[in-house]
């Protein structure tokens, strides 16, 4: 399998050793679950249960007629206590259904499609939506929409993202080691839905056992494994497509423009679990790490579990914690409250100390150009920071700001610690507002 690589990128310290050999530990759900009503890219959902209702495990509790939505299910059996605004890990507060766990773990009726080979593509997509499956990689795009490109778009390759390029994280890694067959079965289902022959799983070389595990599980299926040189952000879908297939997604377009659909390996497994076993997306594998955690581990935890519960179970040292990050350290969200709950996009929870965050008072830009060398989209971050400082939003658009994938490589490598990601995010919102 040829490897083409991609230009740019950085090499932050991996910090995966702490959890890469720890098998996923199932953590019991807490007493109260907080189900946020927006756990996907798209519009928020409406609750379909009321306060006082009894709910069963796996029962749908929120849905919407809007196109870009994915329903949410209760991860436990219990009673709906409140439906009101609550802390949300993607900033601010959002309407949340609060369920009191009765500890019984009583399942709802779970429809499934065991014979998916015989099923219609339409029915498979409908079931994928019904099970609340969104991209497990973190962006949480509704999967049934991604796997249903417009009729005039020709797809020839399915790429599976097993790169897990963010430091600290091991959730995809452990899934590939412990349940590779669920991923392979899920890939087969996706292949049928998309109508493609070629499926390739990209895995970074820092996970040699995962590569071996997936190779073994894929024997005889025609699914290829492509080892990738370890470099951040190899897991960015455009970088993945470039590295494995040597195709460059044109500026402003989607991977479907070059005939490719990318899915996280965890999403494939979730599709298998949802369709064949009937289990909707109600649990996540999360890597809990960072030096402020005494017992870093990989856990399987119910969606809606507050971060504080998880931190206490893993031996958090709150005095040592400088930042609490959901996700990886390069693109994750710093949390303002431990009460924020796990959502479908949570793959990591990091309690980072000052030693790891390495704060440094920003100095003037010295024009070293290291940001330009680091950018995987080959942009000029140096200009983003300078133009944003002078609020030159029209000019900033000319530097292809909208192509930025917000990977953070530029800000990571800057010796002066310039506020690059801030400049980029503000610049993008200004450009979007200007377009309207």
């Amino acid at each position, binding site marked *: 399998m040829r490897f083409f690589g991609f230009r740019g990128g950085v090499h932050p310290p991996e910090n995966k050793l702490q959890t890469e050999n720890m098998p996923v530990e199932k953590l019991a759900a807490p007493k109260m679950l907080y189900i946020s009503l927006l756990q996907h890219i798209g519009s928020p959902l409406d609750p379909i249960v009321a306060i006082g209702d009894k709910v069963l495990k796996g029962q749908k509790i929120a849905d919407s007629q809007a196109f870009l939505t994915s329903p949410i299910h209760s991860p436990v059996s219990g009673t709906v206590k409140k439906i009101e605004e609550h802390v949300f890990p993607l900033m601010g507060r959002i309407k949340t259904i609060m369920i009191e766990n009765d500890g019984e773990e009583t399942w709802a009726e779970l429809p499934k499609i065991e014979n998916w080979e015989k099923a219609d593509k339409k029915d498979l997509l409908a079931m994928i939506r019904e099970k609340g499956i969104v991209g497990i990689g973190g962006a949480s795009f509704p999967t049934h929409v991604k796997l249903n490109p417009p009729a005039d778009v020709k797809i020839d390759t399915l790429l599976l993202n097993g790169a897990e390029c963010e430091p600290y994280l091991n959730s995809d890694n452990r899934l590939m080691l412990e349940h590779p067959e669920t991923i392979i079965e899920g890939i087969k289902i996706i292949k049928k839905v998309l109508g493609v022959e070629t499926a390739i799983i990209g895995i970074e070389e820092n996970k040699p056992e995962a590569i071996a595990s997936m190779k073994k599980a894929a024997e005889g299926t025609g699914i290829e494994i492509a080892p990738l040189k370890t470099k951040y952000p190899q897991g960015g879908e455009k970088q993945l497509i470039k590295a494995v297939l040597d195709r*460059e*997604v044109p500026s402003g377009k989607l991977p479907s423009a070059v005939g490719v659909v990318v899915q996280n390996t965890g999403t494939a497994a979730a599709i298998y679990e949802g369709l064949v076993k009937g289990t909707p997306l109600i649990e996540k594998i999360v890597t809990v790490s960072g030096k402020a955690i005494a017992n870093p581990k990989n856990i399987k935890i119910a969606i809606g579990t507050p971060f504080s519960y998880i931190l206490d179970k893993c031996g958090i040292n709150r005095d040592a914690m400088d930042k609490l*990050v959901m996700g990886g350290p390069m693109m994750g969200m710093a949390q303002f409250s431990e009460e924020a709950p796990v959502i479908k996009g949570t793959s990591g929870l990091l309690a980072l100390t000052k030693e790891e*965050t*390495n704060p440094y008072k920003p100095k*003037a830009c*010295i024009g070293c150009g290291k940001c330009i060398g680091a950018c995987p989209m080959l942009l000029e971050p140096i200009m983003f920071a300078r133009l944003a400082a002078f609020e030159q939003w029209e000019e900033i658009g000319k530097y292809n700001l909208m192509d930025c994938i917000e990977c953070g490589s530029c800000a*990571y490598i800057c010796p002066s610690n310039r506020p690059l990601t801030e400049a980029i995010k503000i610049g993008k919102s200004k450009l979007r507002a200007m377009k309207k």
Partner: protein
Amino acid sequence: MTNILKMGPSPHIRTSETVEKVMYDVIISLIPAFLVAVYVFGIRAFIVTSVAILSCIVTEFVCQKVMGQDISVFDGSAILTGILFSFVIPVNMALIYVIIGSIVSIALGKMVFGGLGHNIFNPALVGRAFVQASWPVAITTFSLDGKAGATVLDVMKRGLPLDGALLEGGNQYVQAFVGRMGGCLGETSALALLIGGIYLIYRGQIDWKMPTLIIGTVFVLTWAMGGDPVMHILSGGLFLGAFYMATDMVTSPYTPKGKIIFALGLGLLISLIRMKGGYPEGVAYSILIMNGIVPLINRYTAPKKFGEVKSNEK
């Protein structure tokens, strides 16, 4: 409500590189050249460099106070400017000129533009250009082992044999390479400067293509124009300029293609001034001229973006 945790945009980790580390790396790389300077020119070299460093630090302190900026005189950049300024003047230049030149380097070469990162011209060379315009005789009075004389470049310019130049006995090229020759304080030893340059390349602070292209271009062009290419690259401030001045991040292009154009332009200008122009030495003026063109170079050498759609394809 529990206390609010520390927020901030991603990334939440960063490299261990800092501005200070970059500056001090360059300072360390100049130690070999400094040691050669003391060996060849005596204790006076140490005094001149120390006076320059001190003057630069004090000037930056005063400017930052007046401008209301945070005091950052020990971030390494003022010290570096002091060292580089002292390296491009003759060792016997009057100390008062050294002090004034240092003040000009910092105040007019850097602070008046806004401080670190904002200047267009290489500060040490701005200081040198000022001294050259104000005291042209003092800046071209060289000596070696107590006796005054002309530098190798001077002698080559006038078409005279190298025996008349300030050069220790023995193989002329070896002496020029090692640094036992007349010239400015820190520019004589190509060997010591090369050692420092390799250190900087190894540390990732400079791109190897820049100095290689500059030196290579000067070699080829001076040869083509009838000069002694080996003596040309070993004398004058060429190695100093190629490894330490042209590579200054603030005043050189930040795009990869831009750096190459900058290097080629420098090689061309240096060769032209030395072979055809009025001065025997052209490195300082060439760098200052190219510094001025850098914003233009940056604008026209933007890297090709990922997935860039050509305008006629849209």
